[in-house]
């Protein structure tokens, strides 16, 4: 622990050690354990509901509406040119596009 620079407007003060950093997930668990009444709003009940509209499909490369998907790489594409460019793509870029879209394969 390094010494904090001295400032005149501060008083000696320190949080208990386990309170200095608590990720949001932990705070969420804390609140859940309190068993609050169901109708009471908290930060975590205000989350947007999951979308009920089917997600539209766009090409991973160009963003254009994509009627096709390559079964091999799982990338979506809009036309033949994009398909051709996909063939020379290194796998890290393919994976990059997939993770940006949030695609995770069942196999992993």
């Amino acid at each position, binding site marked *: 622990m390094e010494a904090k620079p001295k*400032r005149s*407007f501060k008083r000696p003060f320190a949080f208990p050690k386990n*309170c200095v950093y608590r990720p949001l997930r932990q705070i969420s668990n804390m609140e859940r354990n309190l068993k609050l009444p169901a109708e009471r*709003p908290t930060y975590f009940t205000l989350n*947007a*509901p999951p979308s009920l509209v089917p997600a539209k499909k766009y090409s991973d490369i160009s963003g254009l509406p994509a009627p096709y998907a390559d079964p091999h790489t799982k990338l979506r594409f809009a036309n033949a040119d994009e398909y051709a460019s996909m063939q020379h793509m290194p796998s890290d870029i393919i994976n990059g596009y997939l993770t940006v879209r949030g695609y995770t394969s069942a196999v992993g």
Partner: protein
Amino acid sequence: MADRRVLVIDNGSYECRVGWSDSKEPDLRFRNVLTKPRKDRKKEALQQGSSEGAQPAVVEAPAEIQVGNDITNIEAVRAHLKSPFERNVITNWNHQEQIFDYIFTKMGFEGQERVDHPIVLTEALANPNFCRQQMSELLFECYGIKAVSYGIDALYSWEHYQQRRQKISDALLISFGYSTTHVIPVLGGKLQLEHVRRLNVGGYHIITYLFRLMQMKYPVHLNAITISRMEKLVHEHCHVAVDYREELVKWAQMDYYDEHIMKIQLPYNAVTATNALLTAEQKQEKRRELAHRLLEIKNRREREKLREDEQQLFVYNKLRQLYEQQKLEKFERALQQQQIGTLEDLDALIATINSRIKRAQDRAQSAPRPSKQQEKLDKMPKPPAGVSQADWLAELHGKREELLGRKQARQQQRSEQAKRHTHAAQQRMRIISSLAKSEKRRKANGEEEDDGFGMNDNDWDVYKRINRYNDDSDSDADNEQLLEFEKILSHYDANFDVSNSNAQAQTAAENYQLHFGVEDIRVPEILFQPSMIGCSEAGLSELIAFVLKLFTAEEQQRLVEHVYLTGGCAQFKGLKDRLAKELLEMRPFQSKFSIYESDEPSLSAWLGACVHAEEPNFGHSLTTRQDHQEYGSEFFREHRASNLFYPTPKD
């Protein structure tokens, strides 16, 4: 208490704005981030300081931690940036303490005993009690403040809007933040907290999305594509499409693309670029020049050496004469001066210098040695007799094209074979099975039954065809020949370039350009379609519809009559039109609604908080030190723009 000036802090996850409530605009605005310089850099700064004679203690303090505007080059420390926020909630209190130190130092509290002013501080909507508790403890216990008032930025912004115009009791606020987007219904001047909904997508996601898209589109410029540059692009050039699909269809057309594409020039080093542009001939010329210069330097050095030697020889010869003239005393003294032992040593020295001079003179007179370059040139294949050089080169070009074609065909076949269900793969399987069949038949019979395979050399080609990998002898030989051709061609033909012989010459600067087209609408669209970044939450228009459904039809109508947009991301062009279109689609036929934009999307929260602090009954919304001690650290006083207080149940 009331006569004290109030310090207003709009503590946003992107930017923090601080100022006195009676001023027109915040005195201090900074990115809400901090960074700790690495150890070695700190040491460097220390050494520099001590070498300049300054006291080390003076140097140490500022080198410790940099906050907000103190960070000179934000890109250099991008990986080490820390923020007290997670989403829009403060979770790291060490960092928050650093931020407060920075704020209060900059606001001139250094030298005072405590921060003796009431503070207005913004916090997240439905901020968890735990976080508020920590915040109150920090403010009251560490900085010794007298009173604090917590409020919500969107509500302050709404207050600012009303103060400029008129009181409006019902509204639907949409607050576009850096990490979240809120839909906030207000009925009868009161926040409907239980019906607020938060989409966890904001400016941060937009910027990172563009950043990653650009990095994958231009892997070559990975390092030139920085978050700061992408931020600028988002701020200045992105807009929300009114009809996303329609605009996309337009972009798919080549003409539209060519007309509307924006080209962003990245910085590039002209020197290295020109070097790459030189033709083979110019390169050779440059090399020759360099060799010439080196040779000259060498010659000059040799001449100097020769002159030195001659002078030395002259001195030694004089010594020798002294000896021969029998002036022994003088001779001994001179020998000592020259640090030479005996007469024999002197003779030996004279002999070596003589031979050295002779060698140097010989070298100067003899013809220059043939250079290695020339030897290489001689080894270069020459056009065969009877064929002109141009014809020969054309022939080589043809051969090279043929080889390249063959190579490409092989690659094609290989890539097709790698996948199942292609014609090539099926062909391969058929050959393999037929080969296996004939082998089996032989074994079953027990005796050698020659099917004539291998009689013809071409028979062996089937193995080449079923080979998955391109490492057969054919391609090796081809590659060798290709290299040979390319060597000859690049030697004789200045215009020949191996890498893109058929591509038209592009200027170097163009290679350093980013094409920014669909991205300008694609990136902000994630607010409406979070599925584009793999977020399963409902998009903004769906969310608005969801929130409205929580109210009765009459209340819904009251809400949509004042839809108010605020927050940094509300500055996207076209956002209002888009929302108008979406609302038109979701509202009943011929019903009315109207959308208002904040005058100062990113500043209005701070300005609204000032309005609030200047009101005569502001004192009632202050949580004082006494309250803090009496009701516990999570307690705060509610007011028009605050969260609602729900005490944590005690067990």
